[in-house]
C-alpha cells in the first residue's frame, strides 16, 4: 500500500519537474528584465529569497529530523522528557534569529522603497519622453502629448530613454504592468500617477492590465515595443501621415465598453488626458480629486 503512495508521489514530482524545465527560461519574464527598474526589482527578489532561505532551509531540515527521530517506535534510543516545556536560552534564541533577519530585510526594503519609488525620474543623459496612459473598458488608450499622436493597445518608444508614464483610468481602476521593464502601478480615475520605466534594448515586451476591471479584463494585453531613435521618429511620421485623427466623439465611442484591436491616431484633442483626470472636479470645490490630481502631477 505504502509503496503505491510513494510511486504516485514520485511520478507526479518527476512530471512536474519535466514540465517546469520544459519551459524555457526566457518565459519567466519577471526574472528576465530588460530595463533598470525591472533589473533592480529582480535583484531585490533574489536578495529576499536568499535571506529567507537562510532561515527556511535549516528549519525544514530540522522539522524532518525531529519528526523522524522522535517517532514512537520499539527500540527507540532518543530521549523522552514529557515535562520539559521551557528554556529561556532557546526561546531567546528563536525570538532573536527572526528579529535579526527581519531587521535586515526591513532596512533593505526601506532603502529600495525610496530608491524604486515609481514617480522618481530615472538618471539618464536623455530627456524622458512622456506617454499618457488611460485604461478604458476594456482597452488601453495611449496618448503622446509631445508628438501629438495616440494609440490603442500598443506603444512604441525609443530604447535607452526614460519613459514617463502618466496613468489614469476612465472607468474602473486597472493596473499598468510591463513585467520586463518593471513593476506595475494602478490606473485610477480622477488621479494621474507617474511611473518611470526604461528599456535597455530593443524588443517587443508583453504588457497587461493586472487589476480586474470587469467582463473583458483578460483582453487588455498590449505590446510595448522599444526601438532605436531613428525607427521611433520614422514611426511617428508614419502614424502622423497615414492614420485618422482621434476626435472627442471618437473618444466617446472608444470609451464604450468593449474590446479593441490595435489602433493608431495621427492626433488627439488637446488636453484630453487632463480632461479625463479632472472631469470629476466640480467648479469651485477643491475636493479630494482635485487634490489627488495635483499631487499626482507633482509626482506623489
Amino acid at each position, binding site marked *: 500500500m505504502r509503496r503505491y503512495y510513494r510511486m504516485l508521489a514520485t511520478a*507526479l514530482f518527476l512530471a512536474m519537474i519535466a514540465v517546469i524545465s520544459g519551459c524555457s527560461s526566457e518565459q*519567466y519574464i519577471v526574472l528576465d528584465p530588460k530595463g533598470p527598474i525591472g533589473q533592480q526589482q529582480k535583484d531585490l527578489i533574489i536578495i529576499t529569497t536568499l535571506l*529567507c532561505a537562510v532561515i527556511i532551509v535549516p528549519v525544514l531540515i530540522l522539522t524532518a529530523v*525531529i519528526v523522524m527521530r522522535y517517532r514512537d517506535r520499539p527500540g527507540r534510543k532518543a530521549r523522552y522528557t514529557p515535562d520539559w516545556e521551557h528554556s529561556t536560552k532557546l526561546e531567546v534564541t*528563536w525570538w532573536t534569529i527572526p528579529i535579526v533577519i527581519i531587521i535586515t530585510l526591513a532596512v533593505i526594503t526601506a532603502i529600495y522603497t525610496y530608491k524604486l519609488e515609481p514617480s522618481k525620474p530615472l538618471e539618464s543623459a536623455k530627456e524622458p519622453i512622456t506617454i499618457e496612459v488611460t485604461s478604458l473598458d476594456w482597452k488601453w488608450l495611449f496618448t503622446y502629448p509631445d508628438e501629438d499622436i495616440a494609440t490603442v493597445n500598443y506603444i512604441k518608444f525609443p530604447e535607452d530613454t526614460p519613459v514617463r508614464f502618466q496613468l489614469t483610468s476612465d472607468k474602473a*481602476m486597472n493596473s499598468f504592468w510591463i513585467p520586463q521593464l518593471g513593476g506595475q502601478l*494602478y490606473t485610477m480615475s480622477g488621479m494621474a500617477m507617474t511611473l518611470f520605466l526604461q528599456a535597455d534594448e530593443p524588443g517587443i515586451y508583453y504588457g497587461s492590465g*493586472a487589476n480586474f476591471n470587469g467582463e473583458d479584463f*483578460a483582453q487588455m494585453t498590449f505590446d510595448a515595443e522599444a526601438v532605436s531613435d531613428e525607427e521611433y521618429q520614422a514611426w511617428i511620421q508614419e502614424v502622423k501621415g497615414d492614420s485618422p485623427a482621434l476626435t472627442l466623439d471618437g473618444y466617446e465611442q472608444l470609451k464604450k465598453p468593449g474590446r479593441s484591436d490595435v489602433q493608431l491616431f495621427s492626433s488627439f484633442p488637446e488636453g484630453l488626458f487632463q480632461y479625463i483626470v479632472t472631469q470629476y472636479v466640480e467648479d469651485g470645490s477643491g475636493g479630494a480629486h482635485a487634490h489627488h490630481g495635483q499631487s499626482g502631477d507633482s509626482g506623489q
Partner: protein
Amino acid sequence: MWDKIKEFSSEFFVTGDPLILGAQVSIALTLVAIIFTLSYFKKWRWLWTEWLTSVDHKKIGIMYIIASILMLFRGGVDALLMRVQLAAPELEFLNAEHYNAIFTTHGVIMILFMAMPLMFGLFNIVVPLQIGARDVAFPFLNSLSFWMFFFGAMLFNVSFVIGGSPDAGWLAYPPLSELSGSPGVGQDFYIWGIQISGIGSLATGINFVVTILKMRAPGMKLMKMPMFSWSVLSSCVTIMLAFPILTVTLFLLFLDRYLGAHFFTLDGGGNPMMYLNLIWMWGHPEVYIVILPAFGIFSEIVATFAKKKLFGYKSMVFALMSISFFSFFTWAHHFFTMGSGANVNAFFAVTTMIIAIPTGVKVFNWLFTMYRGKLSFPTPMLWTVAFIPCFIVGGMTGVMLSVAPADFQFHNSYFLIAHFHQVLIGGVVFGYFAGLYYWWPKMFGFKLHEGLGKWAFWFWNIGFYVCFMPQYALGFMGMTRRFNEYNFDMGWQPLNVVSTVGAFLMGIAFLFQVWQIAHSIKFLKMEKTGDSWNGRTLEWSIPSPAPHYNFARIPVVTSQDDFWEKKQRKLRGEKDAPEVIAAEQAPLEPIHMPKNSGIPFIMSLSWFVAGFGFVWDWKWMIFVGMGGVIACMLARSFTYDTDYYIPVDEVQRTEAAARGAH
C-alpha cells in the same frame, strides 16, 4: 399577463447556461428529496425541536460544520470549473461573465462561508468543554449567530440561480461594484448576504470573548488555559474590532447603490480608493482571524501526540496576542501599487514583516514540543506535521511579497495567488481538518476511519503542491489573476495543466473524506471512553459525546493540561489537591440550563426575507422582513421563561448511562 410573467422570470431566474440549468435542476431535486425524506420518516418535529431551535453549543457547532462542508463543496466545484477553463489557451468552457462570477463566489464562499463557519463550529464544540463550562455565555445569541450566518450564506448562494451571481471580485472594489459598473442584482446579493452573516460573526466574537473571560472553571487562571482557547480569545478580540469595519463599509456601498450616495463613486466627491482602505482594514485582520485558531489547534494536537507539554507556553500566548495586534497595521500591503508614496509603503512593508517574527517563534515552539517527545501519527497529527513545512514556505513567500518594491512585480500575479492559497489551505484548511479529526470522537462518540483518512490526507497534500507550486512559476511568467483566457504564445499552458491536475487531486481527496465519513457511520464502532487520544485538557475528562449539560460537577483546575496531570498523579499514586477532591465528591445539584427557542431561526429568516426585498427593491417584502425582525425582538424582550433546571435524578441517570459503558 403571460408575457409579463415571462419577462419577469427571465430577469429573475438565471437562464441560458446549461451548467446553471443543471444546477437549478439538481437544487430543485435535492430540495424535493429532503422534504420527502423528512415527511416520510416524520422527522419535521424532531428537526425543529432537536436542531433548529437548539441553543446547545454542541449542536450549533455541528450545524456550523455541516453548513461549512456543503460550502466547501460549492466553493470547490467553483475552483474546479476555473481550473478546467484555464487548462488550455483560449478555451471556451466558461464565458468571461460566468468565469468572473465564479472566481468571485469562490473567494467569498471559501473565506466567509467555509472557513469562518468551520472555525465557529470548532469554537462552539470545543471551547466550553475545554474551559469547564456548561454552555457559552449567551446561548440564545449563539443560536442567533448561527442562523444569521446560515441565512446570509443562503441569500448569497441563491444569486447563483436567481438574479445572477456577483462578478466584481471577492472584495468588490468600486467603481466596478457600484451601480455604474455592476447594474445587476448580483452585487446586492453580495452586500446583503455578507452583511447578514457578518452580524452573526460579530455576535459570535463577542460571545466567545465573554465566555472565555467569565466562564472558566474555578482555578483555571488565564495562564493555565489551554492554547486553543487562547487562540479563540485572540481571534475573537480581532473579530470584535474588525467586523464593525466590514459592516460599515458594506453599508456605505449599499447607500451608494440603493440611495445614490457618493461615498465611493467617481462623481459627487466620492473616492473609490477609500473603499480599498476600509475593506482591507477588515480584510487583513480577517485572515488572521481564521489562522489564529488553526495555530491553537496545532498546539493542542502537537502536545497530545508528542505526549509532552507544549513548549514555551508564555511565548505562544504572547505571539498570538501580538499577531492579532499587528494584524491591524498591515492593511495597505494589499495595495502597495496604489502609489501612496515611499513613506506609506515602507511603513506597511515593515509592519507586515514584523508579523513573521511571532509566527516564526510559534513554529519553533511546535518543533521543540515534538523534540524529545514520543510522536505518534494518527490523522490529526499527520495534518499537523504536513502543515509545518507548507506554512513555512507560504510564510516565506509572504515575506517576499511584503517587500514593497518587489511587490510591484508580484502584485495581482499568480505568485500572489499561490502564496495566499498556501497559507490558507496549508494553514487554515489543514488546521481545521486536523481539528475536525481530533475532536470528531468528542462530537459523535466514534473515530473516523483511519485508512481512508490517510488516503484523503495524501491526495490533499500531493494535490495541493501539484496545484499551487506551478502557480508561483506562472507568476514569474507574468500571468495575472482573474484572466479567464490567455494566448498560446505566452507559454503558460503546460504549468496550467499541471495546476489543474492538482486541483482535481484535491477534489478526489474531498471525495475520500465523504467516503470516510459514510464508511465510519456504516460500520459504526462507538468508543467506550471519553478520552480518545490520551488527551490533556478538560474536554477529554467527560464522556463522548458530551451530555448536554457537559459537566455534571464543575471541575476545579489546578494546572495547565489539568486532565493529563490528573492522570499522571493517578499513575504515580499521588493524591489530588483537597479542593479538587471536594469538587468531585460534592453532591450533584440541579443544573441550570437555557431553554430552546425558535426566535433566532425566525428572526434570521426574516432578515433573509428583508435582504431579498432590498436586493430586488420590493418594498412590501422589506416591510414584511423587517416587521418579522422587530416582532422577534419584541417577543424575546417579553419572554421571561428562558431557562430551566435539570433535576438531579436525570443527571444521575445520564451520567450512569454514559459512564456505565466503561
